[in-house]
């Protein structure tokens, strides 16, 4: 069978990305142009600023992806692009470009759900990984526990009822004056802090629920910091970071393992930006061993937003005949499993 070459574009938040994949799982190039420094002074991603940077960079990033793969447009068979969820203005830059490329090259266009892309990152890293399995997707925007029944076939077991896990990390990092983005900083401090120093609440919700809630924990940490300040007592930043992180991880890990056991799977796969958290990787791996559950996660470069993961998801959608037309629009609050 002829190789299928996918060119994928991702611009849902603050990274302009393009990647080229061979047969969905082999990366020929994976270019990420990050805007983190641009947004630092605002303390978070500013949608209009992100969109402006995307349009400046998009074709340069696509050209770099072609150059690195030593290919030209005529070698491309399929265009994959993120059409949601994400910032609408940012999504529209990548989407407009992808639609124009698909038209000008006369090749199929596949609109990809960004969250599905995160799951697919694991297929690139683990060549023998096949569905079904349970996947925990944690990032600045999402916290989902998903049953992956097949390629492009999902059932959501649970999701956050308030803040996403990554969002909670960012908010607590801000309260601790650690700057943006906060997740990696908390993870780093947690390694030196005492995770048992402060007993923050673990919110498990109803007995059989796989949903998450982090707003109560967030308030508990903020209250703790306030009361310390009121009493003029010293705040041990690394202990707060470690205790907060431990409270988040306990819930994430317990629910993921429980989901695998209830559904009868021997695999739990981690995905999303927070999958880069070393504490989460360790804790989940340990607990997995205890129950004979295989734990898989992508390398750091595929945890954060990238286009390779979008290309992988697009490849399987293409094989399954799920192609888009030129009317495809951005869907900022696109749900998982929704087409």
């Amino acid at each position: 069978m002829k190789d299928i070459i996918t060119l994928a574009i991702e611009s849902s938040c603050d990274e302009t990305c393009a990647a080229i994949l061979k047969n969905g799982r082999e990366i020929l190039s994976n270019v990420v142009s990050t805007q983190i420094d641009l947004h630092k002074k605002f303390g978070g991603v500013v949608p209009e600023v992100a969109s402006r940077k995307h349009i400046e960079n998009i074709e340069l990033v696509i050209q770099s992806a072609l150059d690195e793969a030593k290919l030209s447009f005529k070698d491309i068979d399929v265009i994959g692009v993120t059409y949601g969820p994400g910032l609408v203005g940012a999504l529209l830059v990548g989407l407009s470009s992808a639609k124009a490329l698909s038209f000008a090259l006369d090749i199929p266009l596949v609109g990809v759900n960004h969250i599905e892309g995160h799951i697919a990152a694991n297929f690139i890293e683990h060549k023998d990984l096949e569905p079904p399995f349970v996947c925990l997707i944690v990032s600045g925007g999402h916290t989902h526990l998903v049953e992956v029944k097949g390629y492009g076939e999902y059932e959501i077991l649970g999701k956050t009822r308030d803040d996403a896990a990554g969002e909670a990390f960012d908010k607590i990092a801000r309260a601790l004056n650690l700057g943006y983005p906060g997740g990696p900083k908390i993870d780093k401090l947690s390694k030196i802090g005492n995770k048992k120093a402060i007993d923050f609440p673990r919110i498990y919700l109803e007995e059989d629920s796989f949903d998450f809630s982090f707003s109560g924990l967030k308030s508990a940490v903020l209250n703790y910091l306030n009361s310390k300040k009121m009493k003029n007592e010293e705040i041990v930043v690394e202990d707060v970071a470690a205790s907060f992180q431990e409270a988040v991880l306990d819930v994430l890990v317990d629910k993921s393992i429980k989901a695998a056991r209830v559904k009868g799977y021997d695999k739990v796969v981690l995905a999303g930006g927070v999958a880069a958290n070393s504490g989460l990787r360790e804790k989940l791996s340990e607990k997995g061993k205890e129950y004979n559950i295989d734990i898989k996660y992508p390398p750091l470069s595929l945890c954060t937003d990238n286009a390779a993961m979008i290309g992988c998801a697009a490849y399987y959608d293409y094989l399954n005949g799920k192609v888009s037309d030129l009317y495809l629009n951005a869907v900022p609050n696109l749900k998982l499993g929704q087409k």
Partner: protein
Amino acid sequence: MKILGIDTSSQVATVAIMDEDKLIAEYTINYKKNHSENLMPMISEIFRSCDMKVDDIDLIGVCIGPGSFTGLRIGVATAKAIAHVRNIPIAPVNSLEALAFNMNFSKGIICPIIDAQRSDVYTSKYTWESNTLVSIEEMSVKNIDDLIDELNDRYDEIVLLGEGVDIHREKLNKLGNIYIAPNSHKLSKASSVCQIALQKYESGDTLDYKKVEPLYIRKSQAEVQYEEKLKRMNNNE
């Protein structure tokens, strides 16, 4: 020499194909701003209906602004990607100039206005001098009331056009010295964009796809607020 013209800087989405001798096709939609959904199917349809392929195009003219930020980016991203694949130049066209061009050889002053939200408009002034369109005022963002006061003080005949005319028609009707362009000429036409693009091509005024960017005029709200904050902090020091 075939030119593809695109404008999505206002509520209007318009595309056209033209060569040196004639307009070949033009497709304009002025109905709800849904450029993301409409633009590519419009471009696809216009090629199909005149039996042309993207490979036949030698130049792309695109309105880079001023106008709706998101609208501009949809048009510019589309133009850049097609130019990238075809490896052809882009002629960046000012959307106010493209509007003024609709009123070929008019007497008096042509004043295009494009909505800039919060009762502001993007505007500029043009005249026709010996068969050439000349900009006689730097484009800017103005409050509509300030613009009306300014127009009221002038004795020239003034032609107004652009989507801003419809948005602010009630206020504009009070002016005695203005003439509002007819519906056939009031809004953006990609044929005007193509014609300006051709002129730019002939004078060597085109850009590589990598260098084309929207012309926002305005900073983003977050940047404005950030600069104000810095100013306050400096004053408090």
